[in-house]
């Protein structure tokens, strides 16, 4: 584990204060950036993807300087990056490590899989209740149909 961390340090330099989002599936890195509104971020932002990972094969990592996310903000990414871990850094030291948690509700980011749902035909913010956090099943607030892991997509 330490050895893996050491190699990572070499590839993506450390931040002094902020949040490291590690173990992101490589294909989801840019989605995470979009969902967390980091495209406009004005402070130092380090992004790497397709890094070797013992656990995952390939993974991505994002280091955000001077930013500490609220949990409901960061948990949104659990819908498509359930393996992600959060590492809070203060003065170059790890002060907290935790896994993202699937939220109870999902607004805006998920697209309803039902093509006949009103949210796919008018400009409406989507709203879902997460009814199964393990299998990942979301019930649409509007059409009441269930969007599940196999057919989930993002706006």
């Amino acid at each position, binding site marked *: 584990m330490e050895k893996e961390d050491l190699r990572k340090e070499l590839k993506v330099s450390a931040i002094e204060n902020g949040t490291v989002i590690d173990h992101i599936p490589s294909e989801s890195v840019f989605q995470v950036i979009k969902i967390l509104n980091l495209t406009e971020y004005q402070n130092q932002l380090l992004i790497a993807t397709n890094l070797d990972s013992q656990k995952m094969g390939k993974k991505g990592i994002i280091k955000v300087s001077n930013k500490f996310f609220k949990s409901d903000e960061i948990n949104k990414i659990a819908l498509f990056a359930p393996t992600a871990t959060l590492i809070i850094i203060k003065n170059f030291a790890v002060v907290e490590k935790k896994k993202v948690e699937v939220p109870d509700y999902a607004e805006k980011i998920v697209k*309803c899989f*039902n093509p*006949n*749902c*009103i*949210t796919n*035909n*008018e*400009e*409406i913010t989507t709203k879902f209740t997460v009814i199964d956090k393990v299998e990942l099943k979301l019930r*649409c*607030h*509007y*059409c*009441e*149909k*269930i969007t599940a892991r196999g057919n989930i997509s993002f706006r």
Partner: protein
Amino acid sequence: MKNKSLVSINDFTREEHVRILELAGAFEKRPKQRILEDYVVATLFFEPSTRTRLSFESAATRLGARVIGFTDASSSSVTKGESLRDTILTVSNYCDIIVMRHPREGSARFASEISKVPVINAGDGANQHPTQTLLDMYSIRKTQDSLDNLNIAFVGDLKYGRTVHSLVQALCNYNTTFHLVSPQELKLPSSVKMDIKERNLTYHQYTELSEVIPNVDILYMTRIQKERFSDPLDYEKVKNAYVLRNNMLEGAKSNLRIMHPLPRVNEITTDVDDNPKAYYFTQALNGVFVRQALLASILGVVD
């Protein structure tokens, strides 16, 4: 229930369902009361549904309300490209309550969130049609004296019929035993069966209609639509297997009643119509009383 929208059957509690059924009973005894004279009811039918619209308009008119609206999208500004949002924001200025039918699922929920006046869902795509469910409950209660502990058979297309799904869910509050008769291709979806199991209730599945007839209190027939089958041969195989004929009713219980949401095509032969067990046309009449009860209680004219 004053000012409360009715989008899904579960928007109202079990107690509120019972209250609506009681009020409907009172309107059946006195259907003509001019208690809504000061009110305007808008019926917005973005897709045609003659039966449901006429039933609502009859209910409103018998209570003295004025009815405005349109009967299909082509006679509204939808053809000019107006969004549902704009239509609702505009029309809710002109009326005290909106009754709407729309081909998209979730449209009624969305309308209820932006409308200034309450919305009654008269069908949103394949999703919900709660006033149908309430009139079905009213019909069952009236013919069996109670909703509790009944054996109810659902026959035909149990997969796509929203009428069936909503009624099964509502009946889960009343210790119902369900008898599900359908071809393999059109079985009740597992999500609805889960609702039955969660309430510790029993369901039995059949492919033969004749098997259930002697044991049930209600036979709820539905139409099997050809377009539901990917292979037309599969349709040909089952299309005559779920037809109810008068001679099949010989061994039935005396209290059995036959229901159907209508329109009927050929799944109940016309010789059943004269059998006292046939209830589908009275069922349609009951829809007027249930809709009177809903309009009056949501507008706050009765408690």
